[in-house]
């Protein structure tokens, strides 16, 4: 029964907690792999139409869109997912999906 209650005890933390040890840092790739659960393998979209691709725009579009999800009130699933991401995370993700070179 105790275990059950825990599921409802939600720890409200608004960004990924950074622990004291530098070793504990989570990598941007690890975050991105979770995004790809909806955005397809490598974030390249779903099916032939590449629906939901997050690789087919550009760096700035990505940052603007993510910032919009974070600041604008909307009932989109993206609004709920970005709450834990810091500004640095968003920039990191933009660099990950749109590597410069």
């Amino acid at each position, binding site marked *: 029964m105790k*275990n059950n209650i825990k599921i409802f005890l939600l720890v409200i933390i608004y960004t990924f907690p950074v622990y004291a040890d530098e070793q504990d840092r989570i990598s941007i790739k*690890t975050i991105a792999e979770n995004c790809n*659960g909806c955005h397809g393998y490598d974030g390249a979209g779903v099916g032939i139409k590449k629906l*939901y691709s997050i690789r087919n725009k550009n760096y700035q579009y990505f940052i603007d869109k993510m910032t919009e999800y974070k600041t604008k009130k909307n009932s989109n699933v993206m609004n709920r997912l970005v709450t834990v991401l810091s500004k640095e995370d968003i920039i990191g993700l933009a660099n990950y999906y749109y590597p410069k070179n």
Partner: protein
Amino acid sequence: MRTRRKFIKYVLSGIIGFPLLKGVRANYKPKVVVIGGGFGGSTVIKYLEKYIENLDLILIEKKKNFYTCPFSNYVIGGFRDINQNKFSYNNIIRRGVNVIFDNVKFIDSENKKIQLNNSNISYDWLVLSPGIGFKWDSIIGFNQKNSINNPIAWSGGKESSILFKKINSLEDNAKLIIVAPDYPYRCPPAPYERACLIAHFLKKKKKKFKIIILDKKDSFTKKELFLHVWKKLYPNSIEWISRSKGGIVNEFNAKENYVVLKSGQKVFGDFFNLIPDQKASDLIFNSRLSSQDWCQINPVTFALKNHNNIHVVGDSINAWDMPKSAFSAYSQAKICAENLKNRIFGNKIEQPVFLNTCYSLAAENYGFSISSWYRTNSEQNRIVSLGSKSSPTDASYAERAREARESYDWYSSITQELFS
């Protein structure tokens, strides 16, 4: 305190103290066997293929086709064909994975051997994602035999179609009983989504009916949303009886069509969907890999406690705050594949972060979801939620329709990624 310290030590040993390390050479071709080609296992396969070039990769799966549990409630709700939930392993075979269709009987972890029906297979590393098993003693009188006529439909597949046929043949004023299990169980919102979609179907057929959910719990996931939606879409048709209001069911009488509550009261019905309490897959206990209901794993590497060369993901594990879902299994499996590679080659272990999003439909075009990110606590001995967020209760019909569509997009994304 002692055991806690021991556990931390065990967690750390999974990360640092890897004995094979010195022997790993550049041309080393590890033999990795994955048991269970469901959501967890297929994801591990996909990402081991991606991460390790020189690999002897074997998948052992007992069924020729995989029927997803996600969207099986849509079949029960009468708006999805069961064949749309069916995936073959042909593409995984085409990608070069050695797929063996067989039922694993026993895992001999000491000798790193897997016993199949008529043969044995050895491994260097083993990954398990065999799903759930049922606690058949949780409802007296409900057993594997009479569950054939009253399918649980908790493993995808044909059972969902049988349930649908039963619902389709119900007369007017039918009384339907759903028995919801205690935590932890596969897909927390599924019993309540199922109630909605049965109601959706019967309402469309213009039938009068009553669905009674007898629950072992006092709360459930997305409860506020579900209660709100029941009132809005199916007024007076779905009744939820919580644990403290007497919802615990002790017994089932299949011959006379009633269940007996803890209070002794009989509740008669025209349709029963009894969902027993759950535990890890039978394979885990047959192989004596866990003394508890769920596998105890290292939350960073997914190494099984006391069995260093075996990793476990998905519904079979105790994942602390993470619910048992396909999304969770997928998220865990990616970290497992990454850190298994790191263990094999002696690389730095990656810090995990996990995500889950569970969509539920309350009608064909009426969806909502709950999401949460997870990571390990600072002691790295458990997975903790960073806070769940669900769709607002006051969303418009258009927004609900959009989320329903998005659930289909998620489904095609994950199934295409894994099975194509």
